[in-house]
């Protein structure tokens, strides 16, 4: 607390800054928040140094380097409430797709400590660079997380609700339905999928459920809260809000859904095999928080 205000820090991990940008999208509500919240550290918008303690620490971005890991552990000790904001921090996000390769491949072109350094003065400065960790991780893997707000970007309304709750001392809970519940194309009738189609390539009927038409739409296995914004804009859900309550693995759940809704008259197993890149499509935002967290690593013997 600082003059009766809540102190807040916004700490970037391996982030694209979209979550920070979402906070700035609160626009004139920022004035209202400024009456109750003191941002004491947020390198994207201010020059202040890290404080020794803070009420709320918001993290954006995935854990991709050892520096990210260090930050999380240090701030957990310094803050009362730790918040994971956005799909990267809560679920792994798009950077999590790197877990389908191995770190050595990501860094293939790097030369390490080559002896042939051109430095006429003969001195080697010490220039520490963060090292990549073996797999992208989520905050929950390392520390206790008090609040998670998924979404890529997190829905503005949820971010507002969160700040409201912090100011009022009220509860903040994520909605626990699925995107289908908010979707304008959902008629509530039983869905039957008769074809498999490719998004961006096959023609779309804008008035019919995309999944039913045969497009991969992760609405049924994705948490609500975004008001089905992608479908409203005319394209299918890719699951950025993560799985709804009770589900941990979006891919497994989506496979179950597909099994349930395919028309057994019209669809054969061969048709399903045409769905490309299952791991990249069904785990688009959630690979590091999925059952295996990524590609299963084989230890080399010996």
């Amino acid at each position, binding site marked *: 607390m600082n003059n009766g205000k809540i102190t807040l820090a916004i700490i970037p991990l391996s982030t694209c800054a979209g979550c920070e940008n979402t906070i700035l999208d609160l626009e004139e509500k920022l004035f209202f928040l400024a009456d109750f919240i003191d941002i004491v550290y947020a390198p994207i918008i201010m020059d202040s140094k890290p404080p020794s303690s803070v009420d709320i620490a918001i993290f954006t971005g*995935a854990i991709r380097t050892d520096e990210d890991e260090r930050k999380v552990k240090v701030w957990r000790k310094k803050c009362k409430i730790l918040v994971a904001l956005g799909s990267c921090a809560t679920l792994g996000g798009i950077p999590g797709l*790197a877990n389908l390769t191995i770190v050595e491949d*990501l860094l293939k072109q790097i030369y390490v400590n080559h002896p042939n350094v051109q430095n006429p003065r003969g001195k080697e400065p010490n220039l520490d660079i963060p090292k990549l960790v073996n797999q992208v991780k989520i905050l929950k893997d390392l520390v206790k997380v008090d609040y998670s707000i998924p979404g890529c970007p997190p829905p503005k309304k949820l971010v507002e609700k969160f700040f409201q709750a912090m100011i009022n001392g009220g509860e903040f809970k994520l909605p626990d339905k699925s995107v289908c519940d908010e979707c304008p194309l959902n008629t509530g009738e039983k869905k039957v999928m008769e074809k498999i189609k490719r998004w961006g390539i096959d023609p779309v009927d804008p008035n019919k459920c995309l999944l039913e038409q045969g497009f991969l739409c992760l609405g049924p296995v994705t948490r609500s809260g975004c008001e089905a914004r992608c479908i409203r804009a005319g394209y299918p859900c890719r699951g950025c809000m993560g799985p709804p309550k009770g589900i941990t693995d979006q891919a497994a759940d989506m496979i179950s859904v597909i099994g349930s809704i395919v028309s057994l008259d019209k669809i054969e197993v061969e048709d399903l095999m045409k769905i490309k890149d299952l791991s990249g499509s069904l785990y688009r935002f959630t690979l590091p928080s999925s059952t295996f967290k990524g590609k299963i690593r084989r230890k080399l013997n010996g």
Partner: protein
Amino acid sequence: MDRKITFHPITRIEGHAKVTIILGEGEVKDAYFQVLEYRGFERFLRRRPIEEIPMITPRICGLCSTSHHIASVKAVDRIFGVEPPIQAEKLRKLLHYAGLLHSHILHFFILYMPDILLKDLPPERRGFPELLKRYSNLVKEILKVRRFSRKVLEELGSSSIHATPAIPGGFSKPISHEKRVELLREGRENLGRFIEIISEKAIFIDGILDVDINIPSNFISLYFKGETPFYNSKIIRAVSSSGELIEDFHPEKYMEIIGEHVVPYSYAKAPYIKKLGYPKGTYRVGPLARNNINGRLSTDMAAEFQEKMGLITGKPLTNPRYYNLARIAECIYALERIIQILEDEGIENFKNNIPEGKIVNREAVGVVEAPRGTLIHHFKVDGEGSVEEADLIVATVQNTPIIGVEIKEIAEKIMGKDDENFEVKLFQEISRLIRDYDPCLSCATHIPGFPLKVEIRSERGEIISEIPRGLGETGKL
């Protein structure tokens, strides 16, 4: 005894960076601009179906995500051999300009402004929260304009950030009549508002050109005689510091013209114009480059602003502070273009050119002018349309060699003066210089072969030292 100063992190930019300066006896020996993040997009885009790529690449950056989206979708158009109908293209441009406005406003008015209006305050107070307190009217007004850009993005896509409505051969949805009319009205209102905000009487205008720094460099941008080319990409033009034409080339041929310099002991790549070799061929991109190469923006009020601010001189401007004025001019341009597009009813109704799904070209390039500069997306796909290789050249990476040179020069300049608050002043000056470029470091370090490293060059441009970037066991060198 050499002294090392580290500034970490550089604040009020997008992404993680630090600067290390090595001081010897009365001289600046070395200066390093290091970028500290990496996610590996070019690698994990492999094996993804190409039609999904425009939904993934925007996540490289949450400030310029529409640029990545559009660049990707243009490449995907070519892979499937389709072109969007003119109205769909207009909607793509609308998205692009709204994204440009959203990003530029964020940069200049939120991230950069403290360098002008709060420059004498201590670090804890140099930031947006203080701007909110002291200049609340200015902030309120500019946030209204930003809100307009957000509304356009949200109407066309899912959100102001990571909106991905463009599809191969078209655009997901036309705009509704009600929304078009509403946004048109708001667009005109906000153009007026913005012009008011940046008039000569504005308190920040004089503070932009506070120093006279002459940094010669080559410049690169898309070039077109007619509509200023943010989307249309027939020609990329490279000019020298004095304005001479170095080369005009087609985006598809960028690999023949632009090389990426790799130092034997470093994995960072710095783009350079092959014809001139490295480091002579390094160049700058972004609003100043666009201004220098294309001259007058193709809308009236934007061009008027350029004239008034001395941006049209016939020769390239080299002082990085001009980036900010060019950026403001582009905001006006974006607003005027948004209005022009919204005036066309054709965007309410059109038919996309659906690809047949056949791969027509196994390789394609998509180029746009992103807020920060020329952005190139290059993909190779296999017979089924899955990505085999991805090469992304983003704006900021092209600016970093020059930033390295400038850091050293500024350090030398300040060093000559009073030594008392040397480090504090140095931090401020260097950071402000870096911010002139509005660097987007998340964009810059998608590449394998990160982080960006620094070469220190003498006045003659020779490399004095280059610093190896080793991500070794300890991360130390």
